[in-house]
């Protein structure tokens, strides 16, 4: 907790100094806070919820794809090898490329483009954790699996899903962070709303308080989700570590 206090003091002090040194570029904290009341609660809430919707949906798509991929890899060794190569490929594709491709496919104002960009950006983190955790788990419990001879679906449901959950939750902390950051970038390029859209809109209109206010909002949301939700969830599943 003390670490957060030090960070807050450091950030606030730096901000005050920089806004004093470069008043034309950087607004003061007071000016930035005043922007929130000017923007209005409904506009703020709408943008926050839209960004959360984009990032959570993208994260869920990535999480579902990871779960399905691990299940299919139990049925085919070839698919497992394909998955490893696919993961390397996905890590090599820039977010900008995904953004352009999905905007071309679904249009500038489509939420689907933003969701899919977010999914593709967070997928590698989940896929890497999922593949590695499931392989380790099957190796660890091989004597029991050989003895009990579960079907592939039973192996998946009783061993792999609960057994990989601790590592998947840890990976989700990273993946959700990526999803939130990337959804904002995707919104900035092609969306009719959300924090990313508002941020670029403020920049285009030269409203420096707006740029800082929306950026600050995003940082606070990410920290709150990580500390209040994901950290708690990680603690809860820690007892399942084998």
């Amino acid at each position, binding site marked *: 907790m003390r670490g957060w206090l030090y960070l807050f003091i450091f950030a606030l002090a730096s901000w005050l100094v920089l806004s004093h040194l470069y008043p034309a570029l950087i607004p003061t904290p007071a000016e930035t806070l005043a922007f929130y009341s000017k923007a209005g609660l409904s506009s703020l809430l709408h943008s926050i919820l839209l960004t959360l919707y984009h990032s959570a949906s993208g994260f869920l798509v990535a999480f579902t794809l990871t779960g399905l991929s691990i299940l299919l890899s139990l049925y085919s060794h070839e698919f497992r090898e394909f998955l490893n190569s696919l993961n390397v490929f996905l890590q090599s594709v820039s977010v900008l490329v995904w953004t352009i491709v999905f905007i071309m496919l679904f249009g500038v104002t489509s939420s689907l483009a933003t969701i899919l960009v977010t999914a593709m950006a967070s997928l590698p983190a989940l896929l890497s954790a999922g593949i590695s955790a499931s392989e380790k788990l099957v190796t660890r419990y091989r*004597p*029991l699996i*050989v*003895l*009990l*001879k*579960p079907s592939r679906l039973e192996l998946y449901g009783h061993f792999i899903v609960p057994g990989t959950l601790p590592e998947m939750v840890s990976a989700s902390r990273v993946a959700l962070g990526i999803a939130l950051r990337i959804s904002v970038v995707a919104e900035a390029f092609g969306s009719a709303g959300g924090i990313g859209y508002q941020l670029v809109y403020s920049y285009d209109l030269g409203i420096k308080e707006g740029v800082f206010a929306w950026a600050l909002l995003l940082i606070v949301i990410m920290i709150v989700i990580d500390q209040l939700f994901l950290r708690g969830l990680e603690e809860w599943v820690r*007892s*399942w*570590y084998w």
Partner: protein
Amino acid sequence: MGEKLVLVKNLRKSFNEPILGGVSLEVNRGEVVGLIGPNGTGKSTLVKILAGVEEPDSGEVLVRKPSVLYQEDYLLPWKRLRENICLWSKFRGKKCDLKYVERLGLENYLNLYPKQVSGGTRRKAAIARALNMDFDVLILDEPFTGLDSRSKEELLSIVKELATSGKGVLVVSHQLEELFKVADRVYLIGGRPAKMRRVLGREELEGAL
């Protein structure tokens, strides 16, 4: 002599170096057979070969419908003890028979997770899981580790009952007193790579006791 439930002939196994160098043993229906030897002589490797976890390099291995208690408990930490014990029944769509749970003193721990109970209770849960399977031969690797004297006696009594009912039991253990009380025959292995050193019959075991 009863039907052979375990038959091992001249079994050899190497990992980076030779571990088992020509081991032979057999367990017949209605028999309790012991296997003893110093640490690192490949007893647990032999158990894993009998369970089908490891492949032998050469030799003959025949095991008829085994259930195995490994040296490690392999309890799933995300399942309660009851679910761990009943895993085999669940996978076969059968009703889980908890008849050994009370005898092993596990009835008050069934709703707890493995990390919430002692090592001895975890060991008993792993034993109950092995007993819950449908088997012809029960292979127990160090079953007495962590058990109190009452539980050891109860396990010995269960092993004797199983043999009387026509099952075969192979017990790998360091605890010679328990093993000598119950076994019809005990194999001693030793050396590097491990070979059969001696076979003790019932009369020799009683003499040793």
